[in-house]
């Protein structure tokens, strides 16, 4: 029983890492430009499709490099065609614009890359690892791909942290996040910064898309699973990178545990036709969180000035 609990927990945490990877892309853009980028999920799909299809004609490292170039071009296109023309609009208008980008990217990605289910082979062995076989009967099953995801995520966060704290561009990014006008006044080019954050979240999307694609196959549903990143953000706080990680872990573990522990109870009480609690658990958890702590676990307190 305890073994099963721990196994579920670890499985959930590792899924949570994937949510966190998507959420990371959201946070980067929100911090730097105040745009709530709904299209992050579509970007993950687009990136995964690009890697999967390019890997068919060239070795994987080249495919990834090409995908990075494509995502940077995409970031430029979004900045040039959309963001630049919507400067000074309300957040909600920008949000709806990213909804439009989402639809466009989903259609565009599937038009040029095709809409079948593609495989990305990362070269990670399929067979799972068993841990603590002497402590629990049967041991604890660990998926190697999920483990790889966790490691990639840790590396990405470390690199991003260094990028934000140490480099010149990182300092400029933080300045823009703090105050657009003041940043512009001291000579930081806003358009350039936005291009950089969109490109960086595009690259984060490639990482998320590759891991997800190797786990589930690259298909349309990736962009829906990415919606789960929204409750992660609410939980962690929209402006906090550690928040995105911790929120992802909590949601990932929480929904798996809810499915396994709470599911049978709910089914018995309400005479349900099966579980599927993980479909809504994350959102309802976020909703409850919003009622009591709207800024999330690590977010900055929301202060309204008139």
């Amino acid at each position, binding site marked *: 029983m305890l073994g099963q609990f721990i196994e579920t927990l670890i499985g959930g945490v590792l899924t949570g890492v994937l949510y966190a990877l998507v959420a990371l892309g959201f946070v980067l853009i929100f911090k730097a430009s105040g745009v*709530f980028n709904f299209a992050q999920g579509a970007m993950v799909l687009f990136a995964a499709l690009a890697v999967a299809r390019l890997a068919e004609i060239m070795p994987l490292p080249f495919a990834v490099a090409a995908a990075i170039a494509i995502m940077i071009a995409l970031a430029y296109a979004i900045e040039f065609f959309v963001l630049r023309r919507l400067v000074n*609009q309300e957040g909600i208008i920008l949000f*709806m614009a990213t909804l439009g980008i989402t639809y466009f990217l989903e*259609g565009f990605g599937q038009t040029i890359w095709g809409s079948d289910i593609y495989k990305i082979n990362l070269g990670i062995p399929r067979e799972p690892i068993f841990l603590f076989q002497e402590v629990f009967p049967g041991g604890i099953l660990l998926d190697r791909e999920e483990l790889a995801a966790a490691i990639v995520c840790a590396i990405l966060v470390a690199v991003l942290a260094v990028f934000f704290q140490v480099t010149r561009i990182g300092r400029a990014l933080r300045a823009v996040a703090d105050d657009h006008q003041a940043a512009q006044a001291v000579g930081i080019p806003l358009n350039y910064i936005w291009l950089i954050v969109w490109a960086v979240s595009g690259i984060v999307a490639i990482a998320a898309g590759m891991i997800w694609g190797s786990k589930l196959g690259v298909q349309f549903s990736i962009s829906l699973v990415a*919606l789960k990143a929204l409750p992660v953000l609410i939980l962690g706080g929209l402006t906090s990178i550690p928040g995105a990680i911790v929120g992802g872990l909590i949601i990932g573990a929480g929904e798996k545990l809810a499915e396994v522990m709470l599911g049978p109870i709910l089914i018995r009480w309400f005479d349900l036709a099966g579980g599927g609690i993980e479909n809504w658990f994350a959102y309802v958890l976020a909703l409850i969180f*919003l009622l009591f702590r709207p800024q999330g676990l690590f977010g900055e307190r929301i202060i309204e000035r008139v």
Partner: protein
Amino acid sequence: MLYRETGQFKTSYASDAAIFPIAQDRWFVIGLLVFAFFVLPLFANQYLYTEVLIPVLILSLAAIGLNILTGYCGQLSLGTGGFMAVGAYAAYNLLLRVPETNLILVLLFGGLMAMLVGVLFGIPSLRIKGFYLAVATLAAQFFIEWAFARVKWFTNYAPSGSVAVGQLELFGIPLDTPMKKYLFVLAMVSLLALAAKNLVRGRLGRMWMAMRDMDIAAEIIGIRPLHAKLSAFAVSSFYIGVAGALWAFLRLGSWEPLAFDINRSFQILFMIIIGGLGSILGSFLGAAFIVLVPIFLNQIPGLIGIPMSTAMISHLEFMIFGAMIVFFLIVEPHGLARLWAIAKEKLRLWPFPY
């Protein structure tokens, strides 16, 4: 020349507060209604009814509902599909358990239940706004979808929540042909749209708009946020619920929760963005646009002679919708309704330059 209000004086308070103060507008709307009620049925065929007219009308109603919440009160909602599902399944349950209920009552009951659920999920709007609220309404969407797929009682123990309604009848007249269904939908939608138009012109609508434009200022001049926001959620969900019940009963006939998934929510949100936020007319224009564009797109490959797979067409549809959304937000944030207003303004001056 023709479209000019010169000489039309407002001589009473009633005429000052009329919905269509300009005679030409009045006649245009009356003409349109006469056309829709009496002329269209003379030549419309089944395809036109079931694929164009009925969907446009019902989705317009849902768009009006969302427009009240998002366009007039400024509360973004992504839970429209969920609230439509509540309306559909509530109406289904009433009809199932009390079979002799009048169809209109059944549909209104669907609206009322959706209203209750809407108010419940609207409570967070008192603390949060913008995209935070969007996530809260996503919770409504996913939870409701799940509930109707899983809780057996709601769907009368049907597997995977797929249910069907039999022959509908209204005051003893069976609604069996597409024409009868169309006329019934048209009557319901016209009445509800009229009510909505009057609501948003009145005290309630002004409260919502004040809330939308600046909530803090609205609060200072004495508008209670609780009252304003929850009433917007209530009215909006009522409309969406009725639209959901109509969609299920008169468009689909048999349905499952998947008919009201998140894509439905986005579809209706796109209608009000393209049609025009904060405009009843815009809801109709947007619904017509979103329903008609895919139909035209399906015709194009046949017309220009390039064979295209259906998957390709649906991807193109996605791209065009996405691009249209961005285009409208950039060029004309007030949507088709604003273009209409500009056209009218031009028409007033025509043929003189100013």
